[in-house]
């Protein structure tokens, strides 16, 4: 039998995660090139959107020290990665599809500036509805939490999505859907995440 090593144990990101992953948010300037919450440049193809929200703990208090990373496909539904060989979908050289955002230290609000992704082929070739993948770390979170945000203006695609269908409790599926709003000329999807409580967000074991 192939001997397997054990995965290194996870530990919390702690309260000062910003120092390592977003030093400007910690209050100092050190790297020439910071990784941030803006995924687009002027050349990126696709519909400009903002994804924003807060992360709430079990008391309903927003986390003000949370860090999120977002990973998504481009406007055609292709990931910028060698594994993606979906036919007929081109790479967008102006879009990596990855960013990270910190919550505001006072309000707990976080936001990403990105584009709406296209649909990606799922297992057995069944199309998945457009979605972005989110990974959430903070003090008090012992292992990073994986979730997805789907789009509420894609009701038909969402109804056929094979991953949403795995959430046996239909009432919980809405925790995975961002709500589209127009504000100041921008398209904003609001996506609040609840770590506990009646509205606890669905988190995935990927």
């Amino acid at each position, binding site marked *: 039998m192939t001997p397997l*090593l054990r995965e*290194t144990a996870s530990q919390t990101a702690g309260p000062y*995660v910003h120092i390592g992953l977003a030093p400007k948010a910690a209050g100092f300037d050190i790297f020439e090139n910071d990784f941030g919450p803006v995924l687009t440049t002027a050349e990126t193809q696709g519909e400009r959107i903002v994804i924003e929200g807060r992360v709430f703990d079990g008391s309903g208090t927003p986390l003000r020290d949370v860090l999120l990373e977002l990973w998504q496909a481009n406007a055609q539904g292709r990931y910028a990665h060698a594994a993606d060989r979906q036919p007929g979908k081109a790479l967008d050289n102006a879009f990596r599809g990855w960013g990270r955002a910190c919550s505001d230290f006072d309000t707990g609000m976080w936001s990403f500036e990105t584009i709406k992704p296209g649909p990606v082929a799922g297992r057995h070739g069944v199309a998945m509805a457009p979605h972005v993948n989110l990974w959430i770390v903070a003090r008090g979170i012992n292992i990073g939490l994986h979730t997805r945000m789907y789009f509420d203006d894609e009701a038909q695609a969402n109804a056929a999505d094979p991953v949403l269908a795995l959430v046996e409790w239909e009432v919980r599926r809405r925790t995975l859907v961002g709500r589209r709003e127009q504000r100041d000329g921008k398209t904003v999807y609001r996506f609040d995440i609840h770590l506990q409580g009646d509205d606890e967000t669905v988190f995935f074991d990927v």
Partner: protein
Amino acid sequence: MSDDIPSVPAARPDDEYLMRDPASHPPAFAPGYKTSALRSPRNALISIGQTLSEVTAPAFRAEELGPLDGDLIRNYAKTGLPVGERTIVHGTVRDQLGRPVRNALVEVWQANASGRYRHKKDQYLGALDPNFGGCGRVLTDENGHYVFRTIKPGPYPWRNRINDWRPAHIHFAISGSGWAQRLITQMYFEGDPLIATCPIIRTIPDEQQIRGLIAQLDMAAAVPLDSRAFRFDIVLRGQRATWFENVLQSNGQGEAR
């Protein structure tokens, strides 16, 4: 020369990842670490078969990093060198089958020699060091090896129980070749007596897994008259071979891999 034949075939980009073993990690709710009480989901995670969304991940290029990003002794030095024990930290990033994870982004952050973080929310009495920022980042090489240079961090008190102290530690965030591999952890130093009582370490239910987070003094990698070295090897989730049944982006029958 059978030793030259690799026992494990190379991973292909769209091979799926082995399922995560929860016994290797802390549970979400670990009451000894009080902050986890209100920040731990109470529902079971929903297990999904991996898709392109989970096996892909961002790739990073060396030119995105600065030349001093991996040298914490120099990357924030303003008026001189930072105070404290000059220390090299190095090791390999491998997957569970022992394959090197190449081009993995390894990001680190830590307190200074006084146990103080350069962070606007850290109010500890320990002094800030004007020449120490406390963060760095490197990419692994073709053998999965990483190395950075730093000052050994100091221990510090924190609000959990009233006299809890963190052992000296360095935070690590590792981004491998798939989103499912994303991992954050902390590295400790061999011989630190605070390891035995740290509530954050004790969230890990397994002594072997705790030992895996303790870097070992590595005098073979030390620089005489300059720096000691510690070795910390990291294991990310492994990719399993999917020779016959790859179904990530087709039905697994019509389209050849």
